[in-house]
């Protein structure tokens, strides 16, 4: 009886989640295809501005972390600073602007919004700390 109830409940959750998930994935793929040629062009070479741009770009992009490593590696080859690339890969994996509606519908609007804003700030802080630590050690 308990199993039947749990299956029903889970199906209900999936019914709510699937259209949002599919919609967001479609949107993300459209954005990613559109953005991929512009990644390197948005960086300015400014030490202070580039990490911020990296975090912003990482926040609107989406995909498995390994993609961010590959894009990040290419950005490094094109001369973008490691600081900016670190901010980019941190934001890519921690900030999910595109998935915000889905996160909000299950975990609450306040939680999703706060978590993404905090993660955006942390992506910059961690990027600075990583580069500083690498220089010291």
């Amino acid at each position, binding site marked *: 009886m308990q199993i039947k109830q749990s299956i029903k409940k889970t199906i209900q959750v999936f019914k709510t989640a699937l*259209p949002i998930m599919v919609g*967001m994935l479609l949107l993300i793929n*459209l954005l990613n295809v559109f953005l991929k040629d512009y990644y390197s062009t948005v960086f300015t070479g400014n030490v202070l501005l580039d990490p911020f741009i990296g975090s912003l770009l990482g926040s609107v992009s989406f995909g498995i972390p390994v993609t961010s490593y590959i894009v990040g590696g290419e950005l490094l080859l094109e001369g973008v600073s490691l600081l900016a690339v670190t901010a980019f890969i941190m934001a890519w994996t921690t900030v999910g602007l595109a998935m915000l509606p889905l996160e909000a519908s299950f975990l609450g609007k306040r939680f999703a919004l706060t978590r993404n804003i905090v993660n955006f700030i942390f992506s910059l802080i961690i990027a600075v700390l990583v580069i500083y*630590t690498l220089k010291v050690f």
Partner: protein
Amino acid sequence: MENKNGKSKKLTGGMKLLFIVLALYFIVGIFNLQLAKEAAFSFFYMLLKIIPILFIVFIVMIGADIYFTKEKTGRFVGNESGIKGWIYAIISGILISGPPYILYPLLGNLKKRGMKNSLLAALLYNRNIKIPFIPVMIYYFSLKFTIVISVYIIIFSIFNGILVSVIVEKSLTKSL
């Protein structure tokens, strides 16, 4: 749209969103068919990869619904969990595979049963350490970089959990 009883059925927010995005594809396709096609192929490729994971999540959610009663959730990841709760959150964040959006329904259920906001945020933050992808990170950024960033992610997941929880709870108190 009408249901069996002849009453009109309202579209859910999710379905509306889906239709809007499909319309967007249609519009993009009119101006740049190649871009829309590429995006659609990339979407199907992603979807094929997540279908097996979704199936696993479905099974896990049924199991969690049966096993994680309110009382058990409270003990493991709720108010009574203490340091153990943090350890569970960090380790599960690192070990659970699959994209985070697949986990939202499962985590949403756990939250309803008493999982703390701080532990939810910490679990999600630790999902950035992906063990299968570590060799790729080492290849692109070096072993030293990988170790340093992973350590910072674990440490900051705790700050992240505390900060998110404090802000969410403060804003909730304010709105009451």
